[in-house]
């Protein structure tokens, strides 16, 4: 079964990016064309491999599959280790799915196309590598390495305030991740290895766990834009070129949430229990406060960006309920949110490509002029607010079930966030699609074309299919989540025994 599938998926985009630089000099227009096609074919190839991986994945097996390992720094107990379980499988697949979409969405980009496409492929290498890394140092390198392509994508191809946004994004994320480096060094020293599977089985004293938890919270919280560590996000999302925003919102924000699931919960069980109310508070403040902030936005891109932060709050609450339902809901929501938010930003990009302004007060009446577009937008907005029958509903209801098991009031507040999300999303829909058409001087009103169909249709199908057949997704990560929750409960009870034993002595 093992033919280095994960390594292949990780390094293939990098090879594609390097290949681009051997296709002639940058002045030649053919180079730009070559770069586009290389990027598309490479990312499609990775997508095919991802499908092979999902099909070949056996959900009844405990632990990691497609494991790939090699010597790296053996003297220090550091190795090249890759593998996926039910939790990480879909994030690898999500990265593989959305990179070709992002490449297609940037087909019209004309400034320094080769560098642009290379940056996206590099980003794919980093994200897939991060989601499949089973060595902490390897994980850290991919986690942090994302900064390099993303900084360039925002800074070179972004909007007006791109430099401010790029520097803010870089420094915020760097400041967040460096504490994790200290945590990494400490855990490596403690366990003598950076093998994540072994680290999950290494007990850590509860007081130390609290420190490590804070370090992880800083790095994953910034990446996932958990309130109040989200302030870089509106700038970055607003200023990045659209495909960059898609990758940021759909994939990069999941890195943080994934980190909580992979590190905080299994490695620091006592601290997770200790910080649980705190994390609920952060998540709920995120949901409620950011929803109101979204309501106040005048720009459709920023409004969707804020909606993304609000959903991350929901995901955080789901994760820290540490119940099977809550975590599965969070995972489902992460996949669903990745698809939906990417699609929503694609819809924004379609407006942009036709010369429309993104200001809500200058849009309107598109429903009658671009009916297919309006249908797609409506579908994705409904999925975003969690209408039954779409993938968004399943994630939200599962998180609610998990939350109600943990605490009634948490569930109530999370539910209120869902109502708020309906409010601002419907306001947006009304203004964009249904209000009286405002005069937009030179905007084209053509409905969506074949390339745009190609990007939106798969996402739409996935959103509906997942909404009706959620079991197809949950049964794959069910085993891994069950294991995670049981291990957590076991660790807590054994920890309690250890404390009791200490008292008895």
């Amino acid at each position, binding site marked *: 079964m093992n033919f280095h599938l994960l390594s292949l998926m990780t390094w293939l985009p990098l090879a594609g990016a390097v290949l681009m630089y051997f296709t002639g000099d*940058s002045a030649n227009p053919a180079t730009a064309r070559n770069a586009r096609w290389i990027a598309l074919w490479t990312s499609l190839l990775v997508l095919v491999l991802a499908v092979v991986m999902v099909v070949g994945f056996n959900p009844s097996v405990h632990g990691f599959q497609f494991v790939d390992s090699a*010597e*790296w*720094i*053996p*003297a*220090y107990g550091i190795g090249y280790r890759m593998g996926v379980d039910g939790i990480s499988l879909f994030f690898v697949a999500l990265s593989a799915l959305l990179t070709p979409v992002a490449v297609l969405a940037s087909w019209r980009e004309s400034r*320094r196309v080769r*560098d642009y496409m290379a940056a996206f492929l590099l980003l794919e290498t980093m994200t897939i590598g991060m989601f499949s890394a089973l060595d902490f*140092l390897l994980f*850290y*390198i*991919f986690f*942090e*390495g994302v*900064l*390099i392509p993303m*900084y*360039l994508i925002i*800074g*070179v191809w972004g909007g007006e305030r*791109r*430099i401010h946004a*790029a*520097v803010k994004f*870089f*420094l915020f994320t*760097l*400041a967040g991740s*460096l*504490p994790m*480096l*200290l945590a990494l*060094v*400490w855990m*490596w*020293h403690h366990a003598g290895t950076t093998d994540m599977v072994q680290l999950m089985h290494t007990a850590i004293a509860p007081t130390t766990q609290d420190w490590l938890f804070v370090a992880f919270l800083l790095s994953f919280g910034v990446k996932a834009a958990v309130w109040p560590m989200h302030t870089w996000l509106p700038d970055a999302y607003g200023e990045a070129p659209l495909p960059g925003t898609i990758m940021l919102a759909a994939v990069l924000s999941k890195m943080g949430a994934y980190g909580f699931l992979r590190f905080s919960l299994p490695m620091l069980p006592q601290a997770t229990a200790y910080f649980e109310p705190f994390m609920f508070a952060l998540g709920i403040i995120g949901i409620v406060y950011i929803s109101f902030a979204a309501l106040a936005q005048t720009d459709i891109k920023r409004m969707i960006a804020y909606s993304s932060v609000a959903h991350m709050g929901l995901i955080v609450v789901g994760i820290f309920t540490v119940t099977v339902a809550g975590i599965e809901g969070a995972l489902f929501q992460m996949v669903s949110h990745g698809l939906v938010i990417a699609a929503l930003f694609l819809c924004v990009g379609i407006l942009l490509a036709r010369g429309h302004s993104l200001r809500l007060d200058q849009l309107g009446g598109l429903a009658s002029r671009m009916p297919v577009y309006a249908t797609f937008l409506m579908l994705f907005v409904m999925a975003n607010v969690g209408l039954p029958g779409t993938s968004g509903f399943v994630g939200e209801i599962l998180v609610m079930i998990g939350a109600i098991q943990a605490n009634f009031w948490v569930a109530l507040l999370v539910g209120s966030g869902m109502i708020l999300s309906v409010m601002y999303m419907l306001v947006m829909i009304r203004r964009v699609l249904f209000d009286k058409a405002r005069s937009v001087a030179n905007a084209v009103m053509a409905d969506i074309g074949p390339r745009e169909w190609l990007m939106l249709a798969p996402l739409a199908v996935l959103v509906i299919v997942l909404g009706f057949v959620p079991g197809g997704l949950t049964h794959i990560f069910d085993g891994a989540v069950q294991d995670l929750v049981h291990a957590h409960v076991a660790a807590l009870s054994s920890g309690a025994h250890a404390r009791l034993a200490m008292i008895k002595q």
Partner: protein
Amino acid sequence: MSTFYTVLPILFLAIAGMIMLMSGVFTDRDHSFAITAASIVVLAIAARLLVAAPGGTIFHGLYQTNDFTRFADVLVALGAIGALALSVTFNRNIGITRFEFPVLVLFAVTGMVVLVSASDLITLYIGFEIQSLALYVLAAFARHNLRSSEAGLKYFVLGALSSGLLLYGISLVYGFAGTTNFAGIAHALAGHPTAAVGSTIGLVFVLVGLAFKISAAPFHMWTPDVYEGAPTSVTAFFATAPKIAVFALLLRVMLGPFGPVLGQWRDLVQIIAAASMVIGAIGAIRQTSIKRLMGYSSIGHMGYALMGLAAGTAAGVSGALIYLAIYLVMSLGTFGCIIAMSRGRQPVERIADLAGMASDDPRFAFVLAVMMWSMAGIPPLAGFFGKFYVFAAAINAGLGPLAVLGIITSVIAAFYYLRVIKVMYFDAGEPGLDRRSAGVSLVMGAAAAFTVLFVFHPSTLTTLSTMAAHALMTSQGF
């Protein structure tokens, strides 16, 4: 006979340097290019001889060769080779093509080799002065240039001061320990607490003298001025070989003869490391000259490397050595870029001159961007591993607060490294720089390749540095 082979590399370097000096003096034509090329060959051969030199202590404990000295010597030779390869076109452009340049570099390297292998305070001082004398001349090498002369004078005055402090420290140590031999001092300090008290004062002076040379704060004042004033070819040399040699010496002296009193100097080294990291990070923010920026950056880097010394363990030494090796490559790559910055054969040094570089010369922009990211410690580039190992050593030695400070200053420093990338990639402009010479391109390309590809095979350097650290930690008893 083994004594001869141990001392052979120094003899080779010194004699080759003298032959080249004579051939330059007694011929009329300008042979500077040939002599530079010959010097590079000589350095390469010397590096090979240094690696092959039999280990052991010779001349009654005056001079020692082991894996540690070999490691440091090879780095020094590499730094000198790189700096010489960068110097040719630059020196010609600003009219300081003289055959003395490579010869002075050779003599400086001779001093550094002695310095690194010294196992007696007297040998140490002699090596120190051989090196310094050549460096003083090099700093003022563009003697018709006011700023270069100023840099030379500044470096000379402060260098002389630091030599004085060092000598004073040595005399105090000798007075209390009763010997100048490293092993003897270690023995005296371990056995007699009273000797330790007096020697500690001497130790402080020695530490300060050496901190001057590696430009660790608060003894860093000369660095930005000398970096900026000296011709860039000289700065490239200053930033690499001497720093590494003196740092290696610092590791040897502190953990060798003064190893038994680790508790006495550890806080001091921590303070110096902390101050260097902070000053390196804060001072660079407002710089507009890329050479001054590199001056502050080097102060910061020395702070990180000192973290490894403060750890005082084999892992710390190993971490510091890895840090130095990676720092050496990054510095050569960066100075390659800075040397390539000339317009109409006149050097340009402002960061703003790089605006629009990414579309004008993508290769240059790529190399400098890689160097800046690497210096900021962003994975997967080599600079990250340097930081990783010293942080690891510091945390394992219980120096958590220092590591936390290192992280804070890393973020601050990332800001100004990012600014260079920002100017190259995000700002529009027409840099219109001259074509690079082959030597500069070669150094830039090699440095970039090392920095980018290091992540795929870090274990060779780690193994070598672990061996070197092991040799240092076990050679204390001789």
